[in-house]
């Protein structure tokens, strides 16, 4: 059987007097049937910082991310605690729809609705009861500006979102997520389906967004992780192996596995 070859792990914890914790997991386990995909992961995410989750394919980083706003409900069994504002949001009685307004998500492949640009952003807001047209328009403009898309689309917000390029679609998805004004943004390899230039633009908008949002991003791209993140967690076969400041993880990791991965001679 698959042997747990993770002998050591080193997970940094924050001094909560000095750092504000936006989200935290305690002893999180995720099972797909009898297959354990995430094993006992406890991590803290500091507010208004970007935390990158890195690791090879199948290391569980995406599964972990998707568990944070309960996107794995009905797909996998998630046990353990996910603490958001002193509340364990992994409990059954939590209103997951309300919770997801606070913890937004952007996916690997751009998935705009097949509606107009304007409606992509206002659709969920309207469903949540925002009726005032002027308020909606302000929210559209603000979120598109934050996602660095406004200048390219402002002339015609009524065209189909599907007519945008891949990079623009992904920025629209980011705008759609931040239009909800969440606290936390979860990003699941948001730039992996994009060309390098679009990817760079998305990264730049993320750096601006961290002034207002706590960002947790899964990425395959280590340059990207080192460019944009403040903290980095390295995942390997369902375990969080090492978690620290990004500079520490990339320059002097303590665990050999991490060192092998970030220096590119993995396996």
């Amino acid at each position, binding site marked *: 059987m698959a042997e747990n070859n993770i002998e050591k792990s080193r997970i940094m914890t924050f001094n909560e007097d000095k750092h504000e914790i936006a989200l935290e997991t305690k002893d999180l386990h995720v099972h797909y049937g009898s297959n354990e995909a995430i094993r006992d992961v406890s991590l803290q995410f500091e507010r208004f910082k970007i935390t990158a989750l890195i690791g090879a394919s199948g290391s569980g980083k995406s599964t972990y991310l998707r568990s944070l706003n309960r996107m794995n409900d009905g797909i996998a069994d998630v046990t353990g605690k996910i603490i958001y504002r002193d509340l364990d949001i992994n409990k059954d009685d939590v209103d997951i729809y309300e919770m997801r*307004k606070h913890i937004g998500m952007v*996916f690997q*492949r751009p998935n705009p609705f097949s509606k107009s640009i304007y409606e992509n952003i206002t659709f969920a807001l309207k469903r949540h009861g925002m009726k005032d047209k002027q308020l909606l328009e302000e929210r559209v403009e603000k979120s598109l500006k934050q996602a660095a898309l406004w200048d390219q689309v402002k002339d015609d917000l*009524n065209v189909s979102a599907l007519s945008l390029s891949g990079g623009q679609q992904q920025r629209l998805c980011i705008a759609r997520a931040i239009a909800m004004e969440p606290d936390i943004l979860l990003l699941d390899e948001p730039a992996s389906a994009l060309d390098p230039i679009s990817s760079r633009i998305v990264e730049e908008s993320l750096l601006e967004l961290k002034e207002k949002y706590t960002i947790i991003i899964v990425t395959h791209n280590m340059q990207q992780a080192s460019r944009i993140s403040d903290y980095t967690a390295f995942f390997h076969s369902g375990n969080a192996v090492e978690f620290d400041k990004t500079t520490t993880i990339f320059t002097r990791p303590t665990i050999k596995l991490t060192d092998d991965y970030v220096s590119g001679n993995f396996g």
Partner: protein
Amino acid sequence: MNPKKADKIATSILYGIAGFVVLVLAALLGYILVRGLPHVSWQFLTTPAKSFSSGGGVGIQLFNSFYLLLLTLLISFPISLGAGIWLSEYAKNNWVTTVIRTSVEILSSLPSVVVGLFGFLIFVVQFNFGFSILSGALALTFFNLPLLTRSIEESLRAIPYSQREAGFSLGLSRWETVTRVVVPDAVPGILTGVILSAGRIFGEAAALIYTAGQSAPALDFTNWNPANIASPLNPMRPAETLAVHIWKINSEGIMPDASAVSAGASAVLIIAVLLFNFLARFGGKALYRKITSSK
């Protein structure tokens, strides 16, 4: 034989088979239309049938066919939509779902004459609806439900899961996501399924012979009170449809121009079904462009 040559031969054989299918279809359609169209006139389409003398039309049968189609869709579409949504969006992968899915499949392979006899025993005799449009519509609902459910389910499944994730991640409930995101995206596919099933309902005869009956009493097209027996809208009146009419003329028609009426009626039936198919094709596309606001 070298691969290039083998490929050439295989390609030409496949072309041949495809051409043969098209040829058979074209020959059938051509034969029916060439024989039938000369008998089709405005008068043919609007006057009632005659039993013993020549010069009868198919007006009432044509109306009955459309009315029966409308009633059948009114009953079966909501049920199929609900079942399709449940199967595609809510059903868990367990034995209950498997039983339901298998039942739907078996139901779809029932011969229509069996559905007709079942409808006769249940609706006509047991529920005492008599030979009526209602009995016919209910029998056709049984006939239509499995295929329509299946096509709606497949239209919904064709919408990528990422669209649902987008809805969930914005705090929308599953129901909101399904009704506001997934179903609207699937409308063109659903519409195509409905129209294609409409074509099948329109041409169905066997299931109706014992349920909607084989007589077409005279209708008063100025009387729109559904409770009146002479009203076209009355669902309790017997109603021979176009397809049943064709079957009946050919098996026991005694009017002198039976073959001409049959040919004309067949042409009308074929044209209606063809129209449904074209509508499905172009209507679905046009609607999709409209919904996604792409130009």
